[in-house]
């Protein structure tokens, strides 16, 4: 198998939630998360809010430092083997809030051109690049280049944010709920733009969203997260048609569908996720799982390989081969 372009190895991130000494509380936002990205693929990441999706994204692009674990780019550990600044050029991020992502005192051209100048481009080169990219994401540079963030619509701003990420000529872009705040019609246009860019430039995406329909539309593989852990990961097709983790099943069951025949009659997910400060023992999902049995409350499930490239961390699959 080829070297993955980007991989996460046992990432752990805890946030302090107050308290001192023995009473110190930590939020286990991301707990032992590992996965790999093949060059040119799109990995969708889904889960309820608070499951650690955004923290994973920020760990992946090194905006947060993990308590333990590492990120590798092209096989090299970021930090010791690959300088952070070189890594920054290769892996970029687009955020959910298109307005907060843009400096309100900078014009769109300046916002896009900032990245290249950090990496040594001259001001003129960077501006030219910014103009080309504005054009590429569908905004007339003559009309929009000199504007400020509040003078653009949400969809236009998100196009600028994509252009800003592209200005580094990166290989990987992490999109954290990048289209979630947009109107449906605008969302579709931006998704199409993302798919065009992926084809043209051979980009690799990590596409984080709570919208399972959108994730299915754009992703090759999908990772399901629950309370800071990977519940299930596998090819989009098999994960959507044959989910092997009860949590994935519940999420899919709660998914709105226009086709009445495809609506499931299973009980959707009840209640809110447990508090990540004090997660349940054993399998973290057992408190809400309809199929919980013997070992679920005490034993942490391993990642069982249920099909080729398809892993599920659920005791129901214990007859399968253990991977991790």
């Amino acid at each position: 198998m080829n070297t993955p372009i980007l991989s996460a190895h046992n990432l752990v991130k805890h946030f302090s939630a107050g308290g001192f000494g023995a009473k110190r509380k930590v939020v286990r936002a991301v707990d032992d998360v590992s996965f790999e990205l093949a060059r040119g693929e799109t990995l969708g990441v889904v889960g309820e809010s608070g499951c650690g999706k955004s923290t994973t994204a920020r760990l992946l692009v090194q905006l947060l430092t993990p308590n333990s674990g590492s990120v590798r780019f092209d096989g090299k550990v970021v930090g010791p083997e690959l300088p952070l600044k070189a890594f920054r050029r290769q892996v970029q991020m687009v955020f959910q809030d298109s307005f907060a992502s843009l400096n309100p005192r900078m014009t769109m051209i300046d916002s896009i051109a900032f990245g290249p100048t950090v990496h040594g481009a001259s001001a003129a080169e960077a501006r030219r690049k910014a103009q080309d990219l504005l054009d590429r994401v569908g905004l007339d540079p003559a009309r929009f280049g000199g504007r400020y963030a509040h003078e653009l619509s949400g969809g236009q701003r998100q196009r600028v944010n994509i252009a800003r990420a592209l200005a580094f000529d990166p290989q990987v872009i992490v999109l954290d709920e990048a289209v979630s705040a947009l109107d449906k019609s605008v969302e579709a246009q931006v998704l199409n733009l993302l798919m065009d860019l992926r084809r043209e430039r051979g980009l690799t995406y990590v596409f984080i969203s709570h919208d399972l329909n959108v994730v299915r539309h754009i992703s090759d593989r999908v990772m399901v997260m629950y309370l800071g852990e990977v519940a299930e990961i596998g090819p989009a097709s098999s994960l959507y048609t044959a989910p092997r983790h009860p949590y994935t099943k519940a999420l899919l069951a709660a998914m709105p569908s226009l086709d009445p025949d495809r609506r499931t009659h299973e009980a959707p997910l009840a209640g809110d996720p447990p508090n990540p400060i004090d997660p349940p023992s054993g399998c973290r999902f057992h408190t809400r799982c309809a199929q919980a049995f013997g070992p679920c409350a005490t034993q942490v499930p391993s990642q069982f390989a249920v099909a080729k490239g398809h892993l599920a961390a659920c005791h129901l699959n214990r007859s399968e081969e253990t991977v991790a």
Partner: protein
Amino acid sequence: MAVTAENIVPLATVDKSQGYWRAVWSRFLRDKVAVCAGLVAAGLVLMAIFAPWIAPADPLQGTMLKRLSPIGTEGYPLGADELGRDMLSRLIYGARLSLFMGVVPVLIAFAIGSAIGIAAGYLGGWVNTITMRTLDVLYAFPSVLLAIAISGALGAGILNGLLSLTVVFIPPIARVAESVTTSVRKLEYIEAAQASGASSLRIVRDHVLGNVLGPIFVYATSLISVSMILAAGLSFLGLGVSPPNAEWGLMLNTLRNAIYVQPWLAALPGVMIFMTSISFNMLSDGLRSAMDVKQ
């Protein structure tokens, strides 16, 4: 170019993009009270600069025979002080030291306090905790008391006065700078800049400063009025500026004994302090609403 639905939709502010400062300026001009206050403040500053050309007489040269002449005396339109010096000229010249003592400490404190507060806010963590807790100690003194304590210990003199006032204004400015920076730091454009690989110094310079200096500056201008009153107050107590300099607070001090002889003459320097303080106060309020800074 790809034609999409969104960029066909006309926007209210299309094409001629309005810079932030131009918008602030036009909003400010609509505020009549603030414009008047600004004109008065500008007038006072001009009066200080051009004092030698405006003042009819030497502010330090007195005629003993004219001591405490009432307002309206021939050749002394606003009377003469306890040493027979022309009041009008002393009031005009007084603008120099009085404005200097009122404005300069705020400017220095703005520079130092912003640097401390922005650094603490951007770096966060224990740097923030230690810096802000240390400043809390100075904050625990009422400002008048702290200014008097420091200049009382250092003794009279212009430099000592400037120093004590600067120390008084650093903690409040640093506090505001810290809270503004902390809120800006959490925004995603700062994360985006961090993801670009730029150094912290460059991010602060290019992305933080432009978004925090405005609110901090507005806050600092609101302190000028307090500073004017305090600076004159120090001279009034015999700290700060010393005789025979013309400074409004000091003039109030030396004329205080004359209130039974020429009461309204003795009150004149205070009118100048009041006028300066209130015009800076209203100017600062106008600036705040024009820049849309929430308190």
